[in-house]
């Protein structure tokens, strides 16, 4: 048995799904753990039985920082690490508070941003 090695790979498929408005992660049918970013076999157990599933979009802020910039260079912006309910962690941006005001531990919800490189950002959930 060998791994599938032709046609659009997991990275390309993830991006196509994102452009179609679907945020997905890979879940292993053997160990049950999820992986992100996309890959060709499970990073946890090595199984090839990775299945693409819709992500819940529900997350919690694991850590956060604000990159400081002069106003003429676009001003400050937030960069955070968010733990998704599926058990994967994303580098991302959290909106809904000032760049320096994002609380660690806050609940957040995913939102897809399309463009040159489609990507996922998160909004603070109003408690």
């Amino acid at each position, binding site marked *: 048995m060998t791994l599938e090695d032709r046609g659009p790979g997991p990275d390309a498929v993830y991006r196509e799904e994102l452009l179609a408005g679907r945020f997905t992660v890979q879940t292993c049918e053997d160990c049950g753990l999820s992986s992100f970013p996309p890959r060709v076999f499970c990073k946890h157990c090595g199984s090839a039985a990775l299945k693409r599933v819709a992500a819940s979009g529900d997350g919690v802020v694991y850590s956060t*920082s604000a990159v400081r910039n002069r106003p003429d260079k676009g001003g400050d912006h937030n960069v955070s690490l968010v733990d998704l309910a599926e058990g994967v962690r994303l580098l991302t941006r959290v909106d809904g508070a000032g760049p320096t005001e994002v609380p660690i531990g806050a609940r957040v919800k995913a939102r897809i941003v399309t463009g040159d*490189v489609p*990507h996922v*950002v998160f909004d603070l959930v109003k408690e």
Partner: protein
Amino acid sequence: MTHHELRGASAVVGVGLAGCGEAPGRTAMELIGAAAWNAVTDAGLRMTDIDGVFGVSAVHGMPSVTISEYLGIKPRYSDGSMIGGSSNVAHILQATMAIRAGLCSTALVVYGSNQKSASGKLVSSAAEFNPYEQPYKPRFPITAYALAAARHMHQFGTTRRQLAEVAVAARGWANLNPEAYSHGPLSVDDVLNARMVCDPFGLFDCCLVTDGAGALVVVARDRAKDFPKKPVYFLGGGMAHWHRSIMQMPDITVTAASESGPRAFEMAGMEPADIDVLELYDAFTINTILFLEDLGFCPKGEGGRFVEGGRIAPGGSLPVNTNGGGLSCVHPGMYGTFILVEAVRQLRGEAGDRQVKDPETAIVHGNGGVLSSQVTSIFGTEATL
């Protein structure tokens, strides 16, 4: 107790620095060449005596090949493994293995960069495009370390004031080192009031960007006394890495130093209490705190409280980063070389006003990427063999 076969198998018999601080008008390779020449001369050798080359650079794709050509060396064995700032610390272990295996006899470990004069900003392997990171405009590597610091503060109550203590201690050591780039008074309030760069880091929480090169000559233990300077023996080494991208780091408050450290201590047959001098890769103030914890000098989460009250500063109970560190001495992109050189100088007793009293052992901990590759080396004087 039987010792690991690499314990005491090699010794550093030559060290050299060049172009530290600012060296405008010099190429990276000219700085590498000068540091290599200084190290070889310090060992009482000629460049043609070198038959093993372990070198890296931020700007050469085949660094050990390019470096060997420039130095006029035709090595029997060479290695240019690039694992970030810890590369040269790993090369000490690899040189020891190659010497032990008879693949070479006189090894040169070297790194250099002219990145301050050439670009004025970090020349970093983090420049690889990652579509899962770039859209968020992180300022790598700073942002990754800032995220670790923010989480450490949240989880353990570490404060910006405690982070600042690390920068203040480093400056205290730098003020005793005429070769350090930054001199002058620096208070906790100075650190706290500086321009913010990437929360929770202000300007003084971040390392310098300088030029500089460093080199070491490594030989087998049985030749170590044939050279002019007091030999410094390799006692233990260990490496570990778990991630390349910060989002893949399992717990950003626990680094792979928690594995590389115990591996090095086991090889050396030592524990943290046996160490006299610590040289920890301080690219940012949080690094020193994380590595004090992960190497076992204090419990996890206690690093912030541990460094309070000048404990790691000159006059404190634990001498850490005695050259002034990446924060106040030198940091040309990859800093591992410079902590190796400082450890050797301390164990030789050549450290001038910053000399720790009669040290017998030193630990060098190298870090690469975004808290990614972790490499620990333990060195000692002849008395520790």
